[in-house]
């Protein structure tokens, strides 16, 4: 299967629209995916990500717009002629066929000679470490094994594009992480263009070359994981992708190329943000700061840092870090802070009730 003629194709959606009755599932959407790229469609359920994937697959028709795979307009091409591979959320393994038969299905459909099918199937079964299960029925496999079969089945035909619909959703956390590495490794080896639908931001962050965040049928932001994480384009993206502290502020004045901000409800505290076109005195802006970008100190830090005072109200140990919630006078929502765990529980831990300053460098914040 890992042929030298491995091909991958760019995918392009041009103004694709879909409505179901009165409900607009997808507003005109345009997206270009490079050959070999791994793109995740991320968003809450009902955001249109699954509809998008199904339109690429040809399982759903479009009301308007066109879908291109390679240099071909496939808008009206039926799914079986699009040269795709797909892993379904529940794997959709054929319950009446053995592992080997499941994997061979796609090759049979392409009318490959029997002997060659056997070779190909044997090779990919070996690759996903399922050789001893070739004759088992899917119902007798574990979740992870079923997932591998589904992956093998979708890859054995050497598809130009691989579609993954929540491929890890049914796996437990440990298995999920293992499978993520495996998937990424296989994808990189084959170089197959891959589109994955997920609502799991960690999965999207760790696997993708690019993440497309969607909500209510709209494409909100598309970009590299780091870029999206660090610079969310709007409130929804910042909240949906990882944890985020959103601090509502009012612009009180301008100081050179910086705006002077006053956090709502906190008298006497001043924050600063880089000037941006469109920011004027008297306007409301939101600062988004990731919890791991915030540090704590007993003493007030110097003015090069953005800092707010508060009291630690809760503590949760997260393994690699401690999470604290810091309540500030006059503000309802506490600030969430992740602090790297040191390995010494006693030394690393701060006491609930301590007065602290939460502070961060202004590079670590985004103005929404």
């Amino acid at each position, binding site marked *: 299967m890992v042929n030298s003629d491995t091909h991958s194709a760019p995918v392009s959606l*041009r103004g694709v629209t879909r409505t179901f009755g009165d409900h607009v599932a997808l507003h005109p959407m345009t997206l270009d995916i490079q050959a070999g790229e791994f793109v995740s469609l991320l968003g809450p359920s009902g955001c249109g990500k699954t509809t998008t994937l199904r339109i690429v697959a040809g399982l759903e*028709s*479009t*009301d*308007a*717009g*066109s879908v291109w795979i390679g240099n071909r307009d496939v*808008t*009206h091409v039926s799914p079986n002629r699009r040269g795709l591979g797909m892993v379904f959320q529940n794997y959709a393994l054929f319950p009446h066929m053995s592992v080997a038969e499941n994997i061979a299905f796609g090759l049979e459909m392409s009318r490959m000679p029997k002997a060659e099918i056997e070779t190909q199937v044997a090779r990919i079964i070996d690759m996903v470490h399922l050789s001893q299960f070739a004759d088992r029925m899917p119902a007798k496999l574990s979740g992870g094994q079923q997932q591998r079969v589904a992956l093998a089945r979708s890859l054995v035909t050497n598809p130009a594009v691989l579609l993954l619909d929540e491929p890890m959703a049914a796996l437990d956390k440990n298995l999920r992480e293992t499978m993520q590495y495996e998937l990424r490794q296989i994808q990189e080896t084959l170089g197959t263009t891959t589109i994955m639908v997920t609502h799991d931001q960690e999965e999207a962050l760790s696997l993708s070359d690019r993440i497309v965040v969607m909500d209510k049928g709209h494409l909100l932001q598309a970009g590299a994981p780091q870029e999206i994480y660090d610079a969310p384009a709007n409130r929804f993206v910042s909240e949906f992708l990882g944890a985020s502290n959103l601090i509502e502020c009012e612009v009180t004045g301008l100081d050179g190329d910086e705006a002077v901000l006053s956090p709502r409800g906190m008298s006497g505290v001043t924050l600063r943000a880089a000037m941006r076109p469109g920011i004027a005195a008297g306007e409301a802006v939101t600062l988004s700061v990731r919890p791991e970008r915030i540090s704590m100190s007993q003493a007030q830090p110097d003015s090069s840092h953005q800092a707010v005072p508060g009291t630690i109200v809760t503590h949760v140990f997260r393994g690699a870090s401690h999470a604290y919630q810091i309540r500030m006078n006059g503000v309802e929502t506490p600030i969430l802070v992740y602090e790297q765990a040191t390995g010494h529980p006693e030394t690393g831990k701060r006491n609930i009730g301590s007065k602290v300053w939460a502070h961060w460098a202004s590079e670590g914040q985004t103005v929404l």
Partner: protein
Amino acid sequence: MSGSHSVRRPDLGLIALKVYVVAFFAFLMAPIVVVVIYSFSDMAYTTWPITDLSLRWYQRMLEYRPFMSSLAFSLQVAVAAAVLSILIGVPAALALARSGSRYAEAVMTFLLAPLSMPMILLGVALLYYLSWMGLGVSKLSVVLGHTVVSLPYIIRTVAAVYIQSGRSQEEAATILGAGRWQVFWHVTLPMVRAGILAGAIFAMLISLDNLPISFFFAGPDTNTLPVVMLAYQQNQFDPAIAAISTTQTVIAVIMLLIVQRLTGLHHIIGQKR
């Protein structure tokens, strides 16, 4: 094809399927529609095409005493046979669906056997047998006879539904502390309700249309509608027969509408909504 206004292309396969569905239901309804039309004919004899319409055959139907009294009796028998079939059939279906016994198929085969018995033979055999038991020509005899042929439908449909539903819900209920009967009453029974309903409808329909068994037990108090219809049409054939047939269908339709109202007809095919 590059139009940004591209519309969904007509799906030829689906169109063909829809055309076929229409044709199929036309086939299904055709002979019934013919009968319904004839019931409104003004002629004493059936000619095609119909020229004049009237309600005189419905009037005749109402005036002919045995039609109405046998219709009432037929309905009683249908309900009684369905209830009796449910009482003894549901436990059998549940047991067969979950039994690990290697005799399950043999028992199932046995329980479905009445389906393929020519009923005229069963009817006459039952007449002599029940007369020997002292039941003779009686209402109970009719109900027992009908239950024999209704039972397979209940067992078949309930077993099919029960097999499809997993064990986990019952196991969950057991873990939550439900006793055997509580599990049966609160979990199992609601799960197979669709099957019982579908089976009961089948059973009642079979009973309402049963001639060969009712035939041998028909007396002044135990005449079912098909027996009276047969006796009527052996001697004359006017559209009053079509009228009573139409009425019978309407009653059944009302029954179906009640089912639709209560639980939804989709349960008949086990559809989940």
